[in-house]
């Protein structure tokens, strides 16, 4: 895939962030913190990584405003559709649904279910790469670890998990609610190949994916360290913004910051 320059990718990311804030403000609901932290991961995937035969499974479906906005930038959804997010009858459901929107591989929202589906798919899609974004908090879920063990046992080396490690969940930090500790060490112990990167750096995301494609030894995880609520100052690292709608004043301020 021919890649855009870093400045072009950054420009797209800024537009995506604005769309996220607008969608959530208009809908009166949504999850801004995690949506904003995963922007570069999804922009990198859709504008620099995913080939025709590849697939992307979003496991933490509550960050779908980011996915919808990226798909709109990519021309997979008409831009004007974004304003229908969560409206009755809209293909842009509050959590993404496979049967309602073309391009969605898996219905998601309930946490811990995405990696297993991506792994199951990848077993029978050996000529492609199957990417799966997960959140750090969904590592609390037992179902997720069942998939981690399955992928290692069957050496599903075309599976690439990207963890949005933003360190925040609904009621506090991940380390307060249920300490995750070192995900890198955990995944190494589970016999996965591990890379840890800055999840807002396109260079680092691309390099990590390239490295994975060269080795193809084991299932792969890229721990992408990110900032919850990235680029909206009053949302950054603040768990209150897991699922909060901005007031008019907050909306104006956020859009001003994203100019």
């Amino acid at each position, binding site marked *: 895939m021919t890649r855009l320059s870093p400045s072009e990718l950054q420009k797209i990311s800024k537009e995506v962030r604005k769309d996220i804030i607008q969608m959530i403000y208009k809908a009166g609901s949504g999850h801004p913190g995690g949506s904003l932290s995963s922007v570069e991961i999804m922009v990198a995937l859709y504008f620099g990584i995913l080939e025709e035969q590849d697939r992307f499974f979003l496991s933490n479906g509550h960050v779908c405003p980011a996915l919808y906005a990226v798909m709109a930038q990519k021309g997979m959804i008409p831009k004007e559709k974004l304003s229908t997010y969560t409206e009755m009858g809209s293909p842009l459901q509050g959590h993404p649904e496979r049967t309602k929107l073309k391009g969605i591989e898996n219905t998601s929202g309930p946490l811990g279910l995405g990696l297993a589906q991506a792994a199951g798919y990848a077993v*029978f899609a050996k000529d492609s790469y199957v990417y799966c974004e997960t959140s750090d908090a969904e590592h609390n879920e037992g179902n997720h670890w069942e998939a981690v063990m399955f992928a290692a046992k069957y050496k599903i080396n075309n599976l690439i998990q990207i963890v949005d490690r933003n360190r925040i969940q609904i009621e506090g930090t991940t380390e307060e609610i249920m300490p995750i500790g070192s995900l890198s060490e955990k995944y190494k112990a589970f016999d996965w190949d591990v890379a840890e990167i800055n999840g807002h750096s396109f260079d680092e995301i691309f390099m990590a994916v390239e490295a994975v494609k060269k080795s193809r030894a084991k299932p792969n995880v890229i721990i992408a360290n990110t900032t919850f609520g990235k680029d909206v100052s009053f949302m950054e690292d603040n768990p209150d913004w897991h699922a909060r709608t901005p007031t008019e004043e907050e909306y104006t301020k956020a859009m001003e910051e994203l100019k």
Partner: protein
Amino acid sequence: MKSMRDGFGESLLELGENNPDIVVLTADLAESTRVKDFAEKFPDRFFQVGVAEQGLVTIAAGMAAAGKIPFITSYAVFSPGRTWEQIKVTAALNDVPVKIIGAHAGFGASMYGATHESLEDIALMRVIPNMVVVSPCDFIEAKKATLAIAGNGKPTYLRLARQDSPVVTKPEDKFEIGKASVLYQAKNPQLTIIGTGPVLSEALETARQMEENGLGAVVVNLHTVKPIDEQALIHFAKVTGAVVTVEEHQIMGGMGSAVAEVLGKNFPVPMEIVGVKDSFGESAKDYNDLWIKFGLKKENIVQAAKRVILRKNL
């Protein structure tokens, strides 16, 4: 006497030969759910996921999205018991053809006690949109049902008993998902007995005995609980004017409830549901001891029949 799970295992081998898209996953229960032969014959299409039922469902959903037809086996208490949300979201809402095989359903695992007796699975599965719920009654029907669900393109629950049970259907009987069949037809039927699963053998004995005593019955095999055969249910309610349903399951939410939903709307007649009355099971040497204790035997069906006939003739 033969077991339904053996019928399932035999058909699965046949499917494996004929359709390269058939894959099988189990949660550490290959032997007792009768998928071991498949595993040995088709090792590339068999996946042992460990004691991990949630993974079992969700991994299979991914395989189904990739175009495969996964058959996933565990005991019904664990899947769909533990895996209800995974089934709802990743199989049914995604609308992919995962085949959930719930083994040892009903009282079949009697020696293991209440934790291993699945008396709620029909209710759990039939409330989910897109799901097909199939509950065969014997070895022959389990064989046919296994072949049929492979090709229906839908997320499907197949309920299997553990024990050897009487074979009450014939190889030449037609099996079609969603179409009830008649197992017994008295000359002048005054009531309809509708059953699902191996307790149909009790229903059959009941009908034979009652006919000797001058009370004729039709016995309907409702092997598909969803989609339910409304037409057949309404027809027999009209013809006989009284209905008794029999199932190895909680009364609440089960097959009898499904029948009541149809008849209540279309053609209400006096009706009794024979099943487990809002209680847990318990350990016993043999499932039949529990059928007696929890009221699933011929005597219980006869009593229910007498009650509906009384109300019909009021």
